């Protein structure tokens, strides 16, 4: 073997190793979701593959099925708090509504703001960018108490709109920063050429520059979606009846024990929308869409 093929092989092995490190927890989690309780809680050995797969955990958490007698019959069921307690359907719906709406809102607002900050010169435009970023300096836990009061007084607590606004506000600074850098990559001459061609400022933005940074918009939207989809703290404090998936899952940890089967089933199911979303936009996630606009 030549040294370059040794290198290639090593590189592949290393890549596979890294992928395994990242995949293992998810795979184990997914595996747990189809294990019967007896396999999850086997005290004598670790059950890896030798179990009878069951979809009951999904039946209960994702499809609103009843907890079967077999589970209860095994006498290992934890203290249940009623039949509906493990039904995750409304949480999935809430999470989808909140994540999609806040992603659209945050991306749309940031797009306009980023374009303006990238193209227009106004007094304090530099400081403005820093000020926006500074909104992310505080950890959410530091602002959560005042936020709860503000939302309560505004009547936004425990509403979808409330969390959508909260997630949008948290996402805007980051989305703005990313989108601005994409806009900055498009040379200003492109705007000027469009303007000389008779375009208004908004037409420049909408017809010319925006299509050139589709990839950046997709990447930003993915980040916003993932943040909102997995966000826990704000959702926990700002809601009581609306429970997003991360908050819902924590309720499966009860005073008498943790329902690992349900936790892993709903958790695994929660990966799917994000995964689909990324698959949909991944074609746009490549840079270089602006190639050809200018002489490199």
């Amino acid at each position: 073997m030549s040294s370059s093929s040794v290198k290639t092989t090593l590189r592949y092995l290393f890549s596979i190793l890294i992928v395994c490190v990242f995949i293992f927890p998810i795979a184990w989690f997914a595996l747990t979701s189809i294990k019967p309780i007896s396999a999850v809680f086997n005290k004598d050995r670790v059950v890896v593959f030798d179990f009878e797969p069951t979809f009951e955990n999904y039946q209960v958490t994702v499809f609103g099925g009843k907890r079967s007698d077999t589970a209860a019959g095994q006498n290992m069921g934890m203290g249940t708090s009623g039949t509906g307690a493990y039904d995750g359907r409304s949480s999935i719906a809430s999470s989808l509504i909140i994540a999609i709406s806040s992603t659209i809102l945050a991306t749309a607002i940031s797009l306009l703001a980023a374009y303006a900050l990238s193209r227009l010169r106004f007094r304090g435009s530099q400081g403005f960018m820093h000020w926006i970023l500074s909104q992310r300096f505080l950890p959410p836990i530091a602002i959560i108490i005042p936020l709860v009061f503000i939302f309560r007084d505004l009547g936004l607590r425990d509403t979808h709109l409330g969390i959508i606004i909260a997630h949008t506000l948290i996402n805007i600074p980051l989305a703005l920063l990313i989108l601005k850098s994409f806009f900055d990559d498009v040379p200003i001459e492109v705007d000027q050429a469009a303007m000389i061609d008779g375009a208004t400022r908004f037409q420049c933005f909408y017809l010319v520059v925006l299509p050139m940074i589709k990839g950046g918009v997709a990447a930003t939207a993915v980040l916003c979606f993932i943040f909102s989809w997995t966000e826990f703290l704000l959702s926990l404090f700002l809601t009581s009846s609306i429970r997003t998936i991360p908050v819902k899952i924590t309720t499966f940890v009860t005073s008498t024990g943790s329902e690992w089967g349900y936790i892993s089933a709903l958790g695994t199911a929660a990966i799917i929308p994000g995964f689909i979303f990324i698959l949909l936009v991944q074609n746009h996630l490549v840079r270089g869409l602006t190639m050809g606009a200018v002489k490199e």
Partner: protein
Amino acid sequence: MASVNISQLNKKYGAVRVLHDLDLQVADGRFVVLLGPSGCGKSTLLRMIAGLESITSGDVLFDDTRVNDVHAKDRNIAMVFQNYALYAHMSVRKNMAFSMRLKRVDKKTIDEKVTWAASILGLEPYLDRLPRELSGGQRQRVAMGRAIVRDPDVFLFDEPLSNLDAKLRVQMRTEIKELHQRLKTTTIYVTHDQIEAMTMADDVVIMRDGYIEQAGSPMEVYDKPNNLFVAQFIGSPGMNIIECQVAVKNGVYYATRDELFLPLPAQAPVEDGQALLYGVRPEHMVPGVQSAGSGDSRASGVVRVVEPTGPEVHVYAKMAGQDVCAISRERLAWEPGETIYFQPDTNHVHLFNKETGAAL
């Protein structure tokens, strides 16, 4: 089409003044080249004409209409940028049709116009390609196509050829000039390449540090430079400039330096002892083996480098401590270190004031 008149135009960025009271008239249908080194303000001036840069004071008029406050999109101009600034996500056809689509021109007219422009520029086979699938020269043509479909009053070019390789540049130069002869649209073209300026322009405007140094036809600025800057900027290789002092010998005025005795034009406005700069273009620095000079004139140097270019030979020599260049169309074989005699052509000698650089 329109004439462009600029009067008392100023541009300041904060406290920095980049254009100083510029006056310039571009007659309808002319091809005017703004020429100057980088940072001289030529691009700023062009962008002010385009409406992309605000005007600090002064006026820009298209025909008799003041356009200072007219938005770029309403000036009916077309501009070709140095980096082309194509719309990367649109096909060549859509790039060219963009301005007409914005004006809601009907589809048939758009198609006709685009086909017409594509045929002029040889872009027919590429109409459905994206800019990234084109070569540099083709992209450049798309940028021009986008400009000509609009029937603009004024064409503005901002160093459009500087990103092309040498061969393509020469080709595009001819194409742009041909295009202008065909369309006869008033054109203002910015470049720092004096060959481009000389070959393409009806009028050349030479700028430095925000001032217009000289404006005139290419041959005029070449033959009669107003000052030392213009003399040195135009022409390649540049004009030979020799620091001299006027001396009289046998009743004849000469420009002297060490053992040099350079002949002066018959009616030269000089006096004995005056310090001046003696300028002569390489092609007027006739080289010979023996002193061919008349009277007492003596101009000899030592050959440093000989560069045959094909049609002519460039001889670089050291003359009284100063570098000079001579161009000969005769294929004389010079050797480095050899003594060379020059006979400056007194009809083409330029004299400049040593302090101000102004032509005498």
